[in-house]
């Protein structure tokens, strides 16, 4: 029994190291002098914040890296898509959860199937449509693409709304409350966990996406972080690794912190999705 426990602890530590190591290594690389991927020592011999400074000041002579602009762009795109996407998703889920209208079951099946279809499969079509709307190379196009499809991910929220007892609304209706009033004063305050979950996932989705961003945004000043960083490593590859690592740390920190902080909601959301069956 003792031996088994000891073995378990060894395994746990090993898995822990495997989970934590890449993150630690990236942080250390970003603080290392020089610019190469290769290094003889795990701990940097010379600590430096130069790479971070370089990202913020954009004072390189050979190449402009408008990291701060990218950061602001990304914030703008993700925040707007989060607000729009969450709103759309909540409305859809509420409609499907609470009302029985004609064609509802068929629409549910359609939503399920379309939701399984990754948007980038019809990439070229989206591109042509945005081109006809004259929206290419704008951040609004990106926001539109991210939030327009948000309704398709509504199953988790619908599952949540399904669990709110109907007697609450019926009581309110007898008191003469309108549909809109019931939604805003009864349902929404009760749905804080699910609203947190949806906003977080839509925000993170927009924050890290680069498939659409790479296709839509053409000029470097319009890029989001994902595209910018991708280009940084794609064109310079391992020769600018430390700079890339610093960029990664700055992108990952807010999202990782947010995820860790709101873990509880995320896990609730995931489990809600699981018990759907």
């Amino acid at each position, binding site marked *: 029994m003792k031996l088994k*426990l000891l073995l*378990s602890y060894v395994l746990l530590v090993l898995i822990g190291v495997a*989970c934590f190591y890449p993150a630690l290594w990236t942080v250390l690389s970003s603080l290392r002098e020089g610019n190469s991927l290769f290094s003889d020592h795990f701990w940097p011999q010379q600590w430096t914040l130069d790479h971070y400074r370089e990202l913020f000041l954009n004072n390189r002579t050979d190449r402009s890296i408008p990291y701060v602009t990218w950061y602001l762009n990304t914030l703008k795109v993700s925040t707007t898509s989060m607000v729009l996407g969450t709103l759309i998703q909540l409305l859809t889920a509420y409609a499907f959860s*609470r009302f029985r209208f004609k064609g509802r079951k068929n629409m549910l099946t359609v939503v399920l199937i379309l939701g*399984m279809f990754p948007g980038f499969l019809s990439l070229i079509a989206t591109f042509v449509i945005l081109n006809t709307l004259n929206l290419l190379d704008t951040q609004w196009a990106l926001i539109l693409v991210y939030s327009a499809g948000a309704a398709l991910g509504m199953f988790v929220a619908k599952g949540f709304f399904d669990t709110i007892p109907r007697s609450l609304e019926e009581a309110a209706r007898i008191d003469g409350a309108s*549909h809109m009033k019931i939604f805003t004063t009864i349902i929404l305050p009760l749905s804080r966990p699910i609203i947190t979950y949806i906003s977080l996932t839509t925000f993170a989705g927009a924050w890290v996406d680069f498939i659409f961003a790479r296709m839509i945004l053409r000029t470097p000043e319009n890029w989001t972080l994902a595209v910018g960083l991708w280009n940084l490593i794609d064109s310079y590859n391992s020769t600018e690794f430390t700079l890339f690592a610093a960029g990664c740390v700055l992108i990952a920190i807010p999202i990782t912190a947010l995820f860790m902080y709101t873990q509880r909601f995320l896990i609730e959301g995931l489990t809600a999705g*699981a018990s759907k069956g």
Partner: protein
Amino acid sequence: MKRNAAAAGWLSALCMGLGQSYNRQYAKGLLFVLIHAAGIYLVTSKLFPYLKGLATLGDKGQHLEKVGKIFKNVPGDHSVFMMIHGVLAALVFLLYIFIYIVNIRDAVSVGRRREQGKDTRRLNSSVFPWMLLALPIVGVVFFTIMPIVFTSLLAFTNYASPNHIPPRNLVDWVGFATFKKLFTLNVWSDTFVGVLTWTVIWAILATFTCYFGGILVALLINQKGIKFKGFWRMLFIIPYAIPQFVSLLILRNMLNEKFGPINQYFQAFGMQGLPWLNDPFWAKVSVIVVNMWIGIPVTMVLAMGILTTIPQDLYEAADVDGASGWMKFRNITMPFVLFSTTPILITQFVGNINNFNVIFLLTGGNPATMKYNNAGQTDLLVTWLYKLTLDFNQYNIAAAVAILIFLFIAFFSILLYRRTRSFREEDMIQ
């Protein structure tokens, strides 16, 4: 006897909004009349040229024309724009017809209420869900359904480089020729079959390694006698919390054959490093292991939630009967976990078929091979499609592949969904 319903219905069929006005709903009537006017204008002036464009895809490409005394290059028809305009026009036309029908039904139902002497305003609750859904539906129609329709149409054209790229050339309808090419022409069919086989193998392996790995890790933490359970869980969830895009690019560098730290450690122990991303076999191993690194935390979290719901007396009873640890796992734990996570298992399987990020960001589909046309050894159908679209401009083949993926996924999800309890017994919960 009153005949309000029939009269209102006929009036509305004659011209949108008349029936409503007859029912004394003037504001609604005016709105419908305006929609009607706009609809008639669009149908008479725009619809037919656009539909004709959709059918012909243009008849004159970029060509030389004599302007005055010199020949000039004149832009011709742009087939792809004609196509999208045609689809849009058809969509708007369908919408118009739909509103027309809604208008007639509305007039009839209000008329009927008048016949029965009821209040005509109490129809709100059937309209409200549609009000909620209006915005989402518009979004989905324009940015999900229309692209899918358009992509499906592309599969039946010859829109591909080098000979059929507008505006220089025209694109034509070719029927099923693209699919025929994909299945019978050796260059394409070898790639298709090869990539498809690896996609299926990958989806099965990736799903099962993550699934069972996650359950095992959860069991490991949940053992009696393990301290700091919360801490371990927190630690193991890190890979899930870091944005995938960042962690994958970092791992790609860590696995670098020459300079990456992993091979460096191998060498420090006197072993030779491995060509993690450059050898066909090891590249496949790498993507699966890295996918485990990313995917295990999710299953772990789910499994830990389910483990706490298993009644403890089952285990106690098993102990009394002298069951071994393995028997308890096999007969109590696994059935419980499997039962509650089957839907997740299937969603993860479908998700892995479309797992673009892991493959594209880690290996980019490489290592390259001569056997395949525009694809590498670790390419999945989706990454191959992405390359065909963005790098090689083979739009028709890409569209055909997209349709096949879509059919496959649709089949799976309908199968899954129709079987879930939440669909069949939805209304019994409350």
